[in-house]
């Protein structure tokens, strides 16, 4: 009797989970459905689960629409996301290693000065940062979009925590062999810390690809639009072609979903190791 109850409970929970999972997947389905449908299929009064006709030409049409510079925006987003990721990982890992491993009397003071900026949400500084970037004449330039975002206190924090727990024996061996800090870092530490580089890299890449407020403020010229800004501008346009908008949105998340599914376990590990809930 008791067993039957437990089993019934377990089955009920599974049914509930499957229902929730379907609910979470519906938006992805809608993205693909509307992206491949005809305009009439999307705007018809009665909604149907499957579109009446699949229109694969949407995929090429969206790249030819002069109103939506999707190709250019994808290129911009790729350049920004890749350079932001490489720059952030390099700068933050060096700083994190220095803070964790090079004995310096004021290291903790420097660390708290860095940690303090975590309390200032980046979005609140967008007005002052805009002021600075426009003074530098960096509006609508790649460096204006990338450089100010390279100094992530969060990434530095994760690297520091990781290097604090890094086995010291490996480095000691390197030191005995006469390697200095720089070569120890480059030849011993980096190759042995690949998981944390992958974790931070993925998180930074996703954040840079999905960023909206900063690219909206700084990328004012059409030539400097990222995918997110282009999509958003297209959403608020007066005459919009819904099927194009949906296929553009689907194209914009495709690379990310692939990266995400491949590197998911690193993200999970990175989150778990960040010390956020310790």
């Amino acid at each position, binding site marked *: 009797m008791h067993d039957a109850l437990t089993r019934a409970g377990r089955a009920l929970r599974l049914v509930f989970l499957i229902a929730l999972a379907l609910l979470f997947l519906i938006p992805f389905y809608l993205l693909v459905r509307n992206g491949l449908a005809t305009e009439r299929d999307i705007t018809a009064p009665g909604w149907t689960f499957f579109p009446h006709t699949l229109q694969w030409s949407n995929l090429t049409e969206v790249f030819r629409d002069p109103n939506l510079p999707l190709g250019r925006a994808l290129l911009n987003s790729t350049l920004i996301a890749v350079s932001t990721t490489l720059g952030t990982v390099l700068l933050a890992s060096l*700083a994190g290693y220095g803070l964790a491993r090079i004995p*310096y009397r004021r290291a903790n003071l420097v660390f708290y000065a*860095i940690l303090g900026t975590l309390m200032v949400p980046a979005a609140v500084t967008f*007005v002052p940062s805009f002021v600075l970037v426009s003074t530098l004449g960096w509006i609508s330039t790649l460096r204006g979009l990338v450089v100010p975002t390279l100094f992530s206190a969060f990434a530095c924090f994760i690297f520091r925590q990781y290097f604090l727990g890094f086995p010291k024996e490996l480095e000691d061996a390197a030191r005995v062999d006469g390697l200095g800090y720089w070569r120890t870092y480059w030849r011993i530490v980096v190759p042995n810390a690949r998981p944390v580089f992958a974790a931070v890299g993925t998180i930074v890449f996703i954040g840079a690809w*999905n960023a909206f407020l900063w690219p909206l403020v700084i990328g004012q010229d059409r030539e400097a639009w990222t995918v997110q800004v282009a999509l958003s501008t297209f959403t608020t346009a007066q005459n919009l072609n819904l099927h194009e908008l949906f296929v553009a949105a689907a194209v914009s998340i495709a690379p*990310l979903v692939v*990266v995400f599914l491949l590197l*998911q376990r690193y*993200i999970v590990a990175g989150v778990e190791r960040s010390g956020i809930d310790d």
Partner: protein
Amino acid sequence: MTAGRTEEAVTDVPAPRAAVAPGAEPRSLGARLLGPQRRNLWFWLFVGPFAIGLGLFTYVPLVWSVYLSFFDAHNTVSPAGSDFVGLGNYGAMLSDPAFLGSLGTFLLFTAFIVPATYALSLALALMVNRLRFAQAFFRSVFFLPTACSYVVAAVIWKLSIFNGVRFGLANTVLGWFGAEQTAWLSTTDPPWYWLVIVTVRLWLQAGFYMILFLAGLQRISPQLYEAAAVDGARPGWQVFRHITFPQLRATSVAVVLLLVINAFQAFDEFYNLLSDARGYPPYARPPLVYLYYTALGRDQNLGLGSAGAVILALIIAVATVVQARWFGLGRKEE
């Protein structure tokens, strides 16, 4: 944070000093600056580029913003030539019903989104954690929206699920039950747009916090559950209330802090869901949306915008400190 290891790194310092033989030449200023074995130099070579950049792009803008906030700076980022207005901008902001209304919008939004995300992500973690099979599959499904941007999610929500009266999933499904068609995003009485805004964020965020809770759950010692079973606690509510929930306290505190900080930064979904070719409606403007239009909208009133940013930064700082105190957060859990 691991305080013990930090100390270890610091107490490392004196050792090499002692190694300097007594009677050795007094070191020059340069040698002292470089530190034993040039450690100070190496420290700054590693940390310097990051620290300088952070200072330049976080501390400098903040200070500049405070300076600018005392000027009537329209269309300009250098206050030279514009009038010094002292605390005028602050007075204007704090007596502006639209700005105060934006803070009200934030409070209301937080009151919706924090408990909802907390409950949903905890429930997902508890259910996924107990699965014997397909655990990775369900975890991926709930985590996958984290890869989506608010812009893309807003496209789906605004133009497919909660579209206006002609088409859209929500109205179609409700129509099967004979419900009337609703203009979700433009109905202010009742404020149906809240449903749209809250569900977007829930969908995008719940999976991330579920991961945090899963990490917390895995750290609970199985012995605690065994002891509870010996004591006759019934699996389910009793065990959750007396074991699981208290053991998740640190995770819960971190999750609530992150949720509140993130709610403060709400911009993307409001902007993308509610603005259209005619502009932004007068309702539902959280602080960032309001500042965006003040500083970078038609007026380009950067002095006023800076004052707003400073006020907002102060509110966030106070709120964070109060929360940290309230939850008894020490340095350890920062």
